[in-house]
């Protein structure tokens, strides 16, 4: 039971890991992108649209080509979330709009976009399928290593995931290394901490903010894609993604802005998200207690936020200019 719990926790954690890695990159540049929940929806639905159109163009599921089945949704997802990132960057960086308002509008738009296409795609394309079930493409997305099941608990805990899950971990590690040990990361952190100083040092503030936000959005969008294609095995149902986007933002605080910690944090959060199903077998719980247990990730995050702000350790603080617009002539 413990191995299956860990397996499920990781599955739950991967979308959060994508979301929080993307948001960490974005926040490091000083942009507090509250549009992440919307972007993850858009990433998911864009992939679904691509996969849906591809599957419908096939005469029979047997014709599916592995490269196209994975490539088309993947590119659609990246493109969709890139556009969302561009909208955010254009409004906040070029037009200097308020980040909170822009982010929330982006979330409203993104969730609406996801649910709208999720609900109307079938009507719009005029096919006779009863629901969006992308079993063919999802089959390619959820392919795991063939020998994973032969290795017992070790295989189930470490090897039984699809390529997107490992990609999430690789991206988090790479992001962590770039942020900590490269010039690009140093510049990015400078922009997030003090854009005026960074500007004076010759760093292009706008370019850094654009890049970080757009790449961050694309990473976050992959979280949506993973959720639909692997976790939900290709079945889109409206609002199923739920509040995972906000949980990803919570995870950013929980990990004190470090993608490498986010790998473990996401699994922990994923575990907290589903632990009520498993605790039920140990102690008999009522539905009401389960609701209280679902509160745990948020309470834990809040505690981390409070403790880091009380201890005032400099390296654990949010980027200093987080949420503030930068206008060179404004002093």
């Amino acid at each position: 039971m413990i191995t299956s719990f860990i397996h499920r926790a990781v599955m739950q954690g991967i979308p959060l890991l994508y979301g929080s890695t993307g948001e960490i990159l974005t926040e490091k540049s000083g942009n507090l992108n509250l549009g992440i929940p919307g972007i993850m929806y858009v990433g998911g639905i864009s992939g679904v649209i691509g996969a849906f159109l591809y599957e419908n163009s096939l005469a029979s599921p047997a014709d599916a080509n592995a490269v196209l089945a994975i490539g088309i949704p993947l590119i659609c997802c990246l493109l969709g979330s890139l556009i969302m990132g561009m909208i955010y960057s254009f409004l906040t960086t070029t037009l200097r709009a308020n980040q909170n308002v822009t982010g929330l509008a982006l979330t409203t738009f993104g969730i609406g976009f996801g649910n709208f296409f999720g609900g109307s795609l079938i009507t719009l394309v005029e096919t006779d399928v009863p629901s969006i079930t992308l079993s063919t493409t999802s089959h390619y997305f959820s392919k795991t290593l063939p020998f994973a099941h032969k290795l017992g608990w070790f295989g189930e805990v470490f090897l039984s995931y699809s390529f997107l899950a490992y990609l999430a971990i690789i991206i988090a590690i790479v992001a962590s290394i770039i942020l900590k040990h490269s010039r690009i990361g140093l510049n990015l952190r400078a922009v997030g901490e003090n854009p005026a100083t960074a500007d004076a040092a010759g760093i292009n503030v706008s370019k850094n903010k654009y890049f970080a936000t757009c790449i961050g959005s694309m990473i976050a969008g992959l979280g949506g894609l993973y959720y639909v294609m692997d976790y939900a095995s290709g079945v889109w149902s409206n609002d199923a993604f739920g509040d995972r986007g906000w949980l990803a933002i919570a995870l950013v605080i929980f990990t004190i802005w470090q993608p490498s910690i986010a790998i473990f944090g996401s699994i922990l959060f994923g575990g907290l998200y589903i632990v009520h199903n498993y605790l039920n077998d140990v102690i008999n719980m009522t539905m009401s207690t389960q609701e209280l247990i679902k509160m745990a990730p948020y309470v834990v995050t809040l505690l981390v936020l409070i403790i880091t702000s009380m201890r005032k350790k400099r390296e654990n603080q949010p980027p200093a200019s987080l949420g503030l617009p930068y206008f060179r002539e404004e002093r």
Partner: protein
Amino acid sequence: MKTAGEKLKREPLVHISKRAALPFWKSWLIRILSIVASLVVCAVIIVLFTGDNPFAIYGTMIKGAVGTSRRVWNLMQNVAMLLCVSLAVTPAFKMRFWNIGAEGQVLMGGLATAACMILFGNKLPPALLMLVIIAASILAGAIWALIPAIFKAFWNTNETLFTLMMNYIAMQIVAYFVYIWSVPKGSGKIGVINATTNAGWLPSIGHNSYLLNIIIVAVLTVLVYVYLKYSKHGYEISVVGESENTAKYIGINVKKVIIRTMLLSGALCGVAGLLLVSGTDHTITRDTAGGRGFTAIMVSWLAKFNPLYMVLTALLIAFMQKGATEISTVFGLNDSFSDIITGIIIFFIIGSEFFINYAVKFRSHKEVEAK
């Protein structure tokens, strides 16, 4: 041929500078133009999906929002609720305290209302019950806002992230109590509370059950406007918002202002919760606040934190949402369509603020040739 040196001398293509205050009519002209532009974009999108004449569709939209007197009342009720939450977040925003926890504060106010209605519904005389409900809901909303305010004031904890987390904690607390009080037991739904006795329901004036809500919110709008514009507290809020250091220098107790303002903000959210539970739904679910806590932020910001303009922005957003819902029913589309439309309009208005605050000068051709 141009040398590299000459190239460096060239002015950048666009030159942006901060504008001095723009005349009133000009800034509103820009805003209205941006709304028109957004409606054009929306029309294009609507035509893409429905293949119908855009004017006919906007006609459907207007009919959907204000077509019948029942719909007008519904719209007014929606505007009132959205406006109430927007009023609540405004004092905090003016102070640059990013309270995005209105959703949770409204829910806690609503939960307190529901709790009083369920626990004391048949035990207290109606007038006393109403007083208890009012006190409880205001207190609950205020406490939920006080917690982040204290941490912000004393430890400078990031309030945006703090209030965001408080939303979800509130939602789970509500979900917990919904299961505890569910009727029938274990169904996970409370249903209409005190359906037979109507205990704890806000009285309806005449035959209209929403009129009292609308009147209360109208009064609150004026009160908040006066409070922000003409009271000493309101002045202190705007000074703290402009510059915390200035506020300290002229002897304003910043911590006190933060805590006091958030108490007010939370209390107003509590009132919104009261109006939603006791005056509208007569029940509570975790979706009672229905995203209004987030939409209110946009309403308040679009109105430049002015409660009177907020009536207009709340009306615009509520109208578009109602209208877009109608379009989706008529054309058999998903009702999330309204969120897309709202999102696009807000993007345009957000963008238009830039052209109000900044002047954009393009490099003139003459200068280029002269060099």
